[in-house]
């Protein structure tokens, strides 16, 4: 039996208001093995930690139970405190009486009873704890950034500047991401390419950065500090070392009718293409699905016109295997599909467009060379209606429950730019709320209203009806004047909700990173660890974590870089000592455990054992501590009960069950 100390935290009134902490202390002292129990206002404070340390020294405690907040919050704090007082840190257990008790129950009697039971379970467990020692693993000093948009570029630049090599894996043929598609950026109206292109050039020229464009992450194994990643470099069909980027192949390519992804399908591209003029690298790819040469075997025009001899129809996908210490996810976003919102006639009229399509139309390099015109007849619109929150803040499951955050601001920007360039165009915005928190954001929106005379109407649009004369009839409501509105528009722009890149779920699964129901990656702590995934060594940058504008994305990208640098700067990491352990007297070498182990951590060896006087050589399971991550799959599958998990042993968990069911 251990000599156990129980420490009950008030957490101010967070716990003490609902749980009678004195009663918990009193009940703790009645538990067998408990030689010390006390309560204090804030156990995590310096004074609180000292109380624990003094008790360990004075009462010679062998086990400590802290009844406080979630172990996900302060387990490490209390373990470190115990270690400073000479107790093995793994002799500390937490009874979660805040998140799992005081915060969800109102009745003091009921909550106190539950807190006592949780305390008993922790005491029963700690009684069976054994001192554990963390091992060490090495750190590969190289980072991987998945996604080459502004988030990925900024993270990579920051890590590279700190002196560590970084690889960027980008799915499309060029880095740049969504930001490269934008025309101007709020709230300063800088030209997007003007501020992005230098960063793209910096990233491609930086000696510490390697770009893998037109590439995808195929497989991830390993763990923090030592990930092994397979990157599929898709066949470009163009030799990057020979191509000069002259562009003749694109001019001559006869297959010219492929919708351009970069221009959101508003213009066409050729089968051999670079997505946009400032693409980095400026090396085209052949879209094999649409290339005549690949479809019919005849053509080969690009190869004939290429003076550098860079075209290589026989190029194959290449798998690059590299080791990384840290991985940053920066997979960004896309706009939702609008098929569930057909009341806005997006599929029925070419003049109903999304904001991102408007962005391309207003861009000088876009499908209309920057002229604002209707896509149906090329005429200049006189009346434009913007509809906000299309699929955002949606109560039903047609759309997204969250606010996409950027739409209010970019719509104010669009409205302002249109009124500035075409003062005779009327602009109306239908909105639910205008949300402008951010530096200089509200001032920006007010300029749109006050200086540029944009007509904001609070209310939602019910229906957009294409008219025989080519106009669009917008039926909406004005909630302030409480009246129906019918408006004829030449163009309707939908602020469609943004959603994480659809590929992110696949990537999250490979990385074993948590992801929420909206496909946003979950952070380790919503407030205190916003750029880290709960999975160690995985960091989050940009919209993959939640909706963000460019300034926020860049700050978060820097924060993710700092966290990655902090990891790469270490030579060694302490590993989790809660690993599986095989009892050599019970193991019969049946291999069941090795079959279920996701990490290949279990091997077998012939070992001389002494089983109660019988000496013989047996085949027994051996766990490699460096590979074992401590899931415990093997412990349940083991028919002889030889496998057990340190820190969560069969006896420990049963003791908890017993204490709860008492």
């Amino acid at each position: 039996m251990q000599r156990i100390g129980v420490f009950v935290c008030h957490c101010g009134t967070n716990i003490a208001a609902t749980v009678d902490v004195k009663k918990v202390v009193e009940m703790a002292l009645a538990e067998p093995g408990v030689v010390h129990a006390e309560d204090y206002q804030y156990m995590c404070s310096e004074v609180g930690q000292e109380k624990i340390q003094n008790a360990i020294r004075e009462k010679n405690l062998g086990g400590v139970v802290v009844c406080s907040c979630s172990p996900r919050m302060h387990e490490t704090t209390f373990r470190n405190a115990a270690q400073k007082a000479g107790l093995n840190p793994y002799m500390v257990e937490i009874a979660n009486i805040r998140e799992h008790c005081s915060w969800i129950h109102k009745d003091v009697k009921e909550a106190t009873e539950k807190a006592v039971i949780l305390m008993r379970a922790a005491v029963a467990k700690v009684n069976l704890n054994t001192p554990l020692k963390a091992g060490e693993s090495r750190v590969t000093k190289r980072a991987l950034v998945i996604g080459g948009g502004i988030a990925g570029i900024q993270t990579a630049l920051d890590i590279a500047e700190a002196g560590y090599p970084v690889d960027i894996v980008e799915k499309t043929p060029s880095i740049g991401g969504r930001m490269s598609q934008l025309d101007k950026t709020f709230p300063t109206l800088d030209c997007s390419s003007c501020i992005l292109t230098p960063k793209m050039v910096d990233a491609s020229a930086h000696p510490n950065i390697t770009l893998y464009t037109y590439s995808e992450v195929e497989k991830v194994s390993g763990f923090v500090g030592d990930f092994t990643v397979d990157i599929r470099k898709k066949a470009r069909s163009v030799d990057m070392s020979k191509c000069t980027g002259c562009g003749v192949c694109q001019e001559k390519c006869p297959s010219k009718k492929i919708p351009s992804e970069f221009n959101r399908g508003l213009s066409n591209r050729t089968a051999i293409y670079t997505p946009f003029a400032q693409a980095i690298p400026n090396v085209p790819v052949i879209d094999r699905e649409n290339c005549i040469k690949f479809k019919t075997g005849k053509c080969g025009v690009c190869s004939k016109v290429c003076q550098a001899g860079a075209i290589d129809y026989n190029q194959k996908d290449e798998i690059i295997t590299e080791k990384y210490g840290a991985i940053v996810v920066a997979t960004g976003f896309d706009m939702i599909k609008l098929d569930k919102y057909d009341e806005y006639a997006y599929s029925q009229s070419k003049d109903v467009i999304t904001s991102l399509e408007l962005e391309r139309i207003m861009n000088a390099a876009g499908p209309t060379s920057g002229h604002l015109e209707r896509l149906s007849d090329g005429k200049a619109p006189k009346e434009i209606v913007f509809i906000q929150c299309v699929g955002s803040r949606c109560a039903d499951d047609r759309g997204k429950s969250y606010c996409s955050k950027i739409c209010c601001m970019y719509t104010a920007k669009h409205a302002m730019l249109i009124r500035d360039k075409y003062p005779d165009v009327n602009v109306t915005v239908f909105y639910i709320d205008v949300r402008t928190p951010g530096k200089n954001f509200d001032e920006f929106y007010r300029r749109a209203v006050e200086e540029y005379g944009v007509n904001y109407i609070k209310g939602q649009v019910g229906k957009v009806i294409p008219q025989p004369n080519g106009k669009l009839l917008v039926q909406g409501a004005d909630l302030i004047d409480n009246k129906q509105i019918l408006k004829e528009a030449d163009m309707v722009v939908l602020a469609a909700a943004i959603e994480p890149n659809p590929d992110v779920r696949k990537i999250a699964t490979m990385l074993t990173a948590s992801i929420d129901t909206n496909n946003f990656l979950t952070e380790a702590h919503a407030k205190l660890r916003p750029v880290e995934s709960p999975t160690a060594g995985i960091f989050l940058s940009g919209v993959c974590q939640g909706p963000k504008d460019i300034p926020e994305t860049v700050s978060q990208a820097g924060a993710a870089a700092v966290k990655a640098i902090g990891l790469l700067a270490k030579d060694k990491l302490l590993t989790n000592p809660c690993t599986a352990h095989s009892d050599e007297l019970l193991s019969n070498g049946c291999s069941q455990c090795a079959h279920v182990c996701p990490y290949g951590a279990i091997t077998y060896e012939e070992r001389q054992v002494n089983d109660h006087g019988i000496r013989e050589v047996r085949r027994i399971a051996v766990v490699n501590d460096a590979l074992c991550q401590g899931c415990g799959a093997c412990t349940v599958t083991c028919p002889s009960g030889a496998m057990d998990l340190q820190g969560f042993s069969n006896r420990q968990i049963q003791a908890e069950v017993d204490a709860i069911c008492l």
Partner: protein
Amino acid sequence: MSIEAKEEFRPKIVAFCCNWCSYAGADLAGSSRLAYPADVKIIRVPCSCRVNPMFILRAFERGADGVILCGCHPGDCHYTSGNYYARRRMTLLFSMLDFIGVENGRTRVEWVSAAEGVKFSTTMREFVDKIRSLGKNVRLEDLRCRN
């Protein structure tokens, strides 16, 4: 803490929660103040695949009225495949328990992610209601364990 006939029936419910998703989901339910009955007591395990059917049998033997196992959603397991093992094991165990008289309603597997505090809370409320309607577990309880 024995249950007397006159008192309202307060079931004993053990919830096994995996450390990465469901335990965090329970924490989120707590910090969001999403109440559920105090009858539920949570045991933290690294992964749902750590839960040995023996623990569940033990719980029923010791007088638990219901056992719920929560893990990451299929495909999202921190250890890649642990919840698939748990799902198979529990399917088998629960059908055996049902056969010997511990109704299927007393056992449940639920996937709760770290972001699903609401789901955790509603699941627990539903489960407790179900157990209350089923009444006390008498089939597997070892009467020697009663005090």
